[in-house]
């Protein structure tokens, strides 16, 4: 038991490190924004192109997709080393991690030839159009419809609304799940297409989040004409196609989010607590710090267990599924405890008056979103219960009912 690279891993790390030293940006020129706007896009695309040329863009992709055919642990090692450099944000991950693999699995040869390498080089960006106002956790409840055009051309006309689409505002293409047979039960009437996001029938509107930011979008489809050649998978087989996409999502595990225990400790040293002593002397706060430390370390070493499996060429065990449930809840509790520690002053977010507390406010206001995005706490617990522990699925009252006959509550 140790934390060391194997000799092969150490060699790969040395090569990657040397390449990054020679090629990575030395400074975040002009500062990068949050990765959602156009400010850093030119820098992001330039960096992606440079990585792709050197075989560092999608390290696990096989040679026929334009990748170097590397291993998952090599991707992890490169990410670790890249994280030491001030590289621009990566707006390509949803496309390369989820959309393009779906295209690779289901599209015809010409489509693959056309799209895969430009995506890899960062020249074209993809988004994933699944969630809808009527179906978040229940993705298969999608109502956006695709109907055959009445002119007999074989084209499809797509109309409806998607929501929470990351990066739609700067995406060139997207994959969209649509309802093609409302007479069939909900899982059996879906079809997947790829679409050109520049189509005049597609309108992208930013969502104003409760945190004040706008990292996601609503996307409206109005009679968007799509040739049948843009269909991914068989008609009414879109659920199976979307499972391929979502399976790739689950591999994209994130690290810690928001302000952590160390930042909280630092703040507690400098804030007056009970009886005039520094807040760090408050036993109730100390117990919370201990709990956060233990959970943070627990997640860190759970990741180390996952990396060990990757390092051995094995499939990681189910323990990697616990990350977001723990970190999102903790982010919310830590942010709120910090705000309460500030007492009445805690409501002030003015950066001139509370410059050191911005991370806690960001955690407090960002955590509700993190507890929902990419699988709500409740869905993730269901996943652990069903796929890890082998407990029965929830009873589905909508399984054998025509989609059009399902109760909708309105």
């Amino acid at each position: 038991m140790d934390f060391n690279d194997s000799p092969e891993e150490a060699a790969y790390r040395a090569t990657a490190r040397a390449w990054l030293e020679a090629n990575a940006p030395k400074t975040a020129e002009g500062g990068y924004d949050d990765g959602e706007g156009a400010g850093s896009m030119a820098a992001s695309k330039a960096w992606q192109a440079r990585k792709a040329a050197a075989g560092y863009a999608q390290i696990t992709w096989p040679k026929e997709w334009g990748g170097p055919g590397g291993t998952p642990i090599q991707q992890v090692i490169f990410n670790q080393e890249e994280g030491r450099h001030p590289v621009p944000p990566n707006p390509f991950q949803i496309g390369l991690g989820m959309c393009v693999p779906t295209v690779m699995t289901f599209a015809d040869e010409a489509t693959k030839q056309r799209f895969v390498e430009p995506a890899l080089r960062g020249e074209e960006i993809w988004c994933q159009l699944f969630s809808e106002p009527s179906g978040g956790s229940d993705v298969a409840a999608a109502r956006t419809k695709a109907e055959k055009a009445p002119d007999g051309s074989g084209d499809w006309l797509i109309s409806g609304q998607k929501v929470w689409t990351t990066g739609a505002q700067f995406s060139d293409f997207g994959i969209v799940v649509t309802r093609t047979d409302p007479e069939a039960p909900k899982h059996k009437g879906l079809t997947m297409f790829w679409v050109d996001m520049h189509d005049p029938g597609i309108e992208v509107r930013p969502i104003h989040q409760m945190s004040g930011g706008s990292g996601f979008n609503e996307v409206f489809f109005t009679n968007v004409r799509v040739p049948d050649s843009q269909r991914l998978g068989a008609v009414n087989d879109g659920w199976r196609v979307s499972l391929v996409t979502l399976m790739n999502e689950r591999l994209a595990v994130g690290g810690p989010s928001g302000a952590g225990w160390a930042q909280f400790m630092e703040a507690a040293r400098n804030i007056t607590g009970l009886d005039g002593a520094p807040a760090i002397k408050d036993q109730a706060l100390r117990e919370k710090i201990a709990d956060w430390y233990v959970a943070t370390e627990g997640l860190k070493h759970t990741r180390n267990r996952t990396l060990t499996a990757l390092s051995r060429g094995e499939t990681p065990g189910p323990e990697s599924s616990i990350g977001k449930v723990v970190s999102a809840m903790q982010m919310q509790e830590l942010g709120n405890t910090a705000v309460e520690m500030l007492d009445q002053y805690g409501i002030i977010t003015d950066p001139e008056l509370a410059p050191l507390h911005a991370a806690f406010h960001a955690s407090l206001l960002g955590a509700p979103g993190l507890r929902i995005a990419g699988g709500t706490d409740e869905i993730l617990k269901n996943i652990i219960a069903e796929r890890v522990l082998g407990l029965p699925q929830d009873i589905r009252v909508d399984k054998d009912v025509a989609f059009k006959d399902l109760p909708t509550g309105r």
Partner: protein
Amino acid sequence: MNFDFSDDQKFLKSEARKFLEANSPTSRVRKVLDDDAKAYDEALWKAVAAQGWLGAAIPEEHGGLGLGYLELCVIAEELGRAVAPIPFASTVYFLAEAIMLAGDDKQKAEILPKIAAGELIGAIATSEGPGALTPNSLQAAVSGGKLTGTKLPVTDGDIADLCLVLAKEGGKAGLFLVDLTGPGVTREMLKTLDPTRDAARLTFKDAPAQRLGAAGEGFALVEQVFDRAAVLLGFEQCGGADKCLEMAKAYALERYAFGRQIASYQAIKHKLADIYVKNELARSNAYYGAWALNTNAPELPVAASATRIAASEAFWFASKENIQTHGGIGYTWEMDCHLYYKRSRQLSLVAGAPRVWKERLVSHLERRNAA
């Protein structure tokens, strides 16, 4: 990255599980549970000694197997899973570790081979009354090599041969070895929360005591011993917590209510998912503790604290929610759920309660940040 046990260590673990399933099923544990006069399972103790487990981490030159702490950790996990009613922790995690840490050559040569052979049961006596022990409240005292004072509770104090005793000498705290079979020692068995692990009140009146380690270093030495024990106890707790999750899952799948398996209700599914999350956080912390213990890393005090906090929480949560999942039948004496609930209390308290460890952890983090 190689943050896992080796194939050999995993094999040892699966062999240990088979051995304990055969030699320590809960029907055997209940012989100790239901008999107030029975302090431990003597036959199991002998069998465990014959396996060499008592000396797993004791060097070969002192009669042990000289394997290492990772091997001891996997054994500990299985003992916890089996709620084994034997003085393993007292003898191996506390006494043997203290001797290896602070004993002189003569003490090592005398005591360690007897531990490895199963000829000597150990114990550690620090507590004297309700609440945490502090240098100011410590009463037991040694003068002229003779110990006088009262210690309670002392886990395995009624069956141990040799006991570590925290006592002051010339106003400073030291750690002493006392032969419990010798003069000046009175033992009384206590009623405790976990009847499968016994405890005693020890009253010393001029009992011969031999100092272990340097004078005045008693509390520091106890902390070091507790750090090492915390990792090993943490594996026992992980083993117990995982067993609770398995019991809860098995029952939830077999029990029907309102026409369905209760495992199909989200209230139960999410409860079991919560247990799983806590168990994995505990296991990952325990792995880090095992690494720190095995390499004697400077991170050991922090890693041991984190292990103890996470593993105490996991076993407590799993054991109480296992009863809840079982419903009424889980509250009966005949079901095994309470064995784990009670053992979780014993393991959480035996080396100091989690809140004490949380304070230690944050103090360590403060010192680390200041450095």
